[in-house]
């Protein structure tokens, strides 16, 4: 791994924690050069890394076809490319792979490299199983959000070596006609704490107790598929096999029975709490902490306890 490129994730112009961890992780392999590809505006002057990085900023645009991505492909040709899973990063990595005729592996949970061979653990079946892969040819990797960074430590910051901008240009006629960001809530895929509720809440008007607990925790809110199918909650809150897959530190499931399709979306969570009035709910078997009780009683009490601290 002589040369490494990282597609960065940023928050308010700075690298997010996962990207910093990824920089420390790739530093273990002693690369000679590191390119940091940053989407959108940034103010990076120094980053924690083993060698000073070269920053390439991608200007705003729809990086959604070969003609747009080819300039980036030229810049990272011959590099081993890493990104941490997001919608945009997976889309860019797959377009890059086809431009570079490179092999890409996504859903990477752990990764080792020795004597030119990658040993890759790829999470499959929504986290229910792991596939060990070896490859001397794959060069593009999309790492899962809960990638095992346990043995990396933060490196001292080094001044950025160079900064350049790739301006979006495409031969295609694609254009954004409207942007609809979700505002006012914590984005679910990034949330460290999640409070999720299901049909056990009985009515969408009862969601205030879920929101109150989420606010007291600083958590994002989520829901089960039946709830989003009933339009009680927006689709982007649906967690499960065909919805968002989350891997927070804490997942609190309220009035969710725990169908296997729902578990597929949450089994990457570190600690799972299940609150349900049905002691037979299958979710209890997959819980770290379980409370058999009425959500209308339990949730406000938890909120009150948190607020009293």
């Amino acid at each position, binding site marked *: 791994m002589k040369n490494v490129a990282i597609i960065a994730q940023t928050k308010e112009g700075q690298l997010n924690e996962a990207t910093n961890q990824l920089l420390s992780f790739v530093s273990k392999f002693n690369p000679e050069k590191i390119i940091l590809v940053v989407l959108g505006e940034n103010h990076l002057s120094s980053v924690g890394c083993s060698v000073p990085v070269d920053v390439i900023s991608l200007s705003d645009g729809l990086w959604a076809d070969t003609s747009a991505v080819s300039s980036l492909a030229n810049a990272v040709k011959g590099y081993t490319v890493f990104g941490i899973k997001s919608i945009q990063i997976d889309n860019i990595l797959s377009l890059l792979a086809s431009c570079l005729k490179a092999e890409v592996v996504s859903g990477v949970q752990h990764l080792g490299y020795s004597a030119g061979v990658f040993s890759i653990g790829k999470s499959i079946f929504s986290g229910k199983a792991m596939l060990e892969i070896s490859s001397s040819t794959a060069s593009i990797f999309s790492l899962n959000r809960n990638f095992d960074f346990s043995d990396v430590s933060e490196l001292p910051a080094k001044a950025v070596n160079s900064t350049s901008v790739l301006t979006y240009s495409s031969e295609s006629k694609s254009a954004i006609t409207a*942007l609809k960001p979700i505002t006012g809530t914590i984005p679910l895929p990034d949330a460290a704490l999640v409070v999720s509720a299901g049909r056990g809440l009985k009515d969408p008007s009862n969601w205030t107790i879920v929101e109150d607990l989420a606010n007291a925790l600083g958590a994002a809110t989520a829901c089960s598929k039946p709830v989003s199918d009933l339009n009680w909650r927006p689709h982007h809150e649906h967690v499960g096999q065909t919805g968002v897959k989350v891997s927070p530190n804490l997942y609190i499931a309220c009035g969710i029975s725990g169908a296997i399709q729902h578990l597929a979306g949450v089994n990457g969570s570190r600690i799972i709490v299940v609150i349900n009035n049905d002691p037979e709910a299958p979710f209890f078997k997959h819980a770290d902490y379980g409370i058999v009780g009425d959500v209308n009683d339990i949730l406000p009490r*938890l909120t009150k306890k948190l607020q009293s601290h």
Partner: protein
Amino acid sequence: MKILVCISCVPDTTSKIAIDPSTSQISSQGLTYIVGPYDDYALSRAIELKESNGAEVIVLHVGGSESEALIRKCLALGADSAVRIDGNPISSTQIADAIVDYVKQNPVDLILMGKESIDYNSGIVHGLVAGALGYVHFNPVMHLDLAGNDLQLEVEIDGGKMEVSCALPAVLGCQEPIAEWKIPSMRGIMTARTKEISVLPLNPTDSVKLVKASIAETARRNKMIDAADAETLIDLLKTETNVL
């Protein structure tokens, strides 16, 4: 207008996954297979477009003959013909290469597939296909309308949604609520019997090596807290875990 819908055939969402000790890979014993749920959304939307705008819908699957019953079901839903590229691909690259080879010989206007297959969860085949063909690529698409030669899309993005207009040809990864899943009609099932499934060979490109699969079990604490003492949950989360 020709629409190619690429489908995966995957274990049912309720499947209990096990390892075959003789191959160290996921065992197919006792599993019920279905058309990938996201691919099913893509196919449903393609059939709706055929009904509303007129289009030829071709279903493509890269895999073995055991998938023919599921391919036949897609024909019963309203697809006009199907192609099976016969083989056992082991990576997204091999599947994408097979689709690209087919489309280079048999040009289409629009390629739809699910945003990911629910077995290997890679979610990159659409991007690889789009990149190799030089087509426009959007993923995951939640609404798709045709206006002449242009597509009007609603696409999920990190932290929200965007509406996009783009020109054909395009490759789209699809997710709900792009369409409702459909059930084949008796007439559809009858006519599907005589529809063609052509079989082409897979020429697998060099790829990664699969070493072994294992079941990932997360050990859970399974600690029950009495409802009367529910508040102690907060203390336990603070003392026994460091999540708060």
